C-alpha cells in the first residue's frame, strides 16, 4: 500500500477517461483495460489531481464548495482516496 505522505501533489495520468454514468463516475484505464467506479467525492478529488494541489489544499477546496463540511474532517477521506488512486496506478 502506498504511503500517503509520498504522494505530495498528486498528478492524474493524462491518458485516463473520466465520465459520469448516472449518479456515479467511471474512470477508464485503457492501458490496463480496467474501469473504476467512483462516487462523487472521489470524482471531485480526481479533478484536483493536477499537480497544483497538495492533499490539504484539496480538502480545503472541497470544503469550500460544500458548505457545512469541515476541511479537517475530510482530510482522512481525501487521503484514503488518493492512496487508492496511487495503489491502482492512476497517478503519475
Amino acid at each position, binding site marked *: 500500500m502506498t504511503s500517503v505522505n509520498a504522494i505530495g501533489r498528486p498528478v492524474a495520468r493524462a491518458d485516463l*477517461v473520466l465520465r459520469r454514468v448516472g449518479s456515479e463516475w467511471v474512470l477508464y484505464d485503457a492501458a490496463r483495460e480496467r474501469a473504476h467506479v467512483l462516487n462523487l467525492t472521489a470524482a471531485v478529488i480526481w479533478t484536483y489531481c493536477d499537480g497544483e494541489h497538495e492533499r490539504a489544499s484539496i480538502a480545503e477546496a472541497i470544503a469550500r464548495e460544500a458548505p457545512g463540511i469541515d476541511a479537517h474532517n475530510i482530510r482522512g477521506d481525501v487521503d484514503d482516496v488518493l492512496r487508492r488512486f496511487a495503489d491502482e496506478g492512476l497517478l503519475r
Partner: protein
Amino acid sequence: MAARALQAMYHAAPTTTAPPTLRYGLHRSRAGSYVAASPERPLLMDASLTEAWAYLEWRATEDLLNGPGGVDVFLHAAGAEVAQRLVLIVGDSGAGKSTLVAHLMVRGHRMLGDDLVRFAPQNCRFSAVGRSMKLDVNTLKDMPLIASQCASAAVGTLLAAGCYYVSPAAIRRDWQAQPRKPWAVVLLDAGARDGPAGIARSSDGEAGVYVTQKVLSRERGVEVGAVRTEVVSRLLESLAEVAAYRATGHDPATIAEALEKEALR
C-alpha cells in the same frame, strides 16, 4: 413442407433498409439434404434444414461481430424501447435476455435486439440489429401469442432444434426501436436473483463498466489504443443519464411489467 419452411425462413430475417448481400447461401442437394455456404468457411454439407439455418444465423452473427463493420461497434446485449425510453438489457448467455425482450414485445414495445445491439460512437446512439430472436421452446409457455404463431408456422417463425427463430417483424411490422441514448440498463444475473420478481435500483457506475466490457470483450475492431479509448469514452458518454436496475426473481413476465411501470413513471 420444405417449401413452406423455406418461405418462413426467408421472412425470418427482419425487414431492413440495408442493401441485400449474397454472402450466404442455402442449397438443397439432390439427395434432399441441405448445404449451407458462408464466406471463407467450409460448406456445411448433408445438413437438415434446421441445422443449416442455425449454422447460417450463427455464422452471420460471428461475421458481424468480427468484421470491420465500419465505425459502428456491437454490444452483446438485448434492448427494447419502453414508453419511448431505451432500455439496454445485459447479462451472460442464458441469463434470459431474449425472453425478457420477447415479453416486452408482446406487451407492445419495440425492440433493439435480443442478443446484439449496434452502437454508433459518432452520435452516441444505440440502434437495432435486424436479426431473428432465438427463443428456447420452454420460454414460450407463457407467451401464447408467439407460441401460436410458431405452432402454425406463421411467416417469420421457424422451429429449429430446441428453439424458435422468430422475426420481430412477425410480431409487429414496425418493430425497430428508434436510435437513441439509453434511459436504463437492466442487469440480468443468471444467479443471485433472490426475492420476488421485479427490478431494483443498482449501481449506475457498475452498469456502465459492465456495458463497456460487453463491447470490448466482443469487438475486435476497436483494439487500437487511441481508437479504443475513444469508443469507450463515447460509450460512457452515452450512459451519462442512465439509471441502472438489477432484475430480481425469475418470472420474466413480471420483470417486464415492472420495467414498463418504471419507464412510465
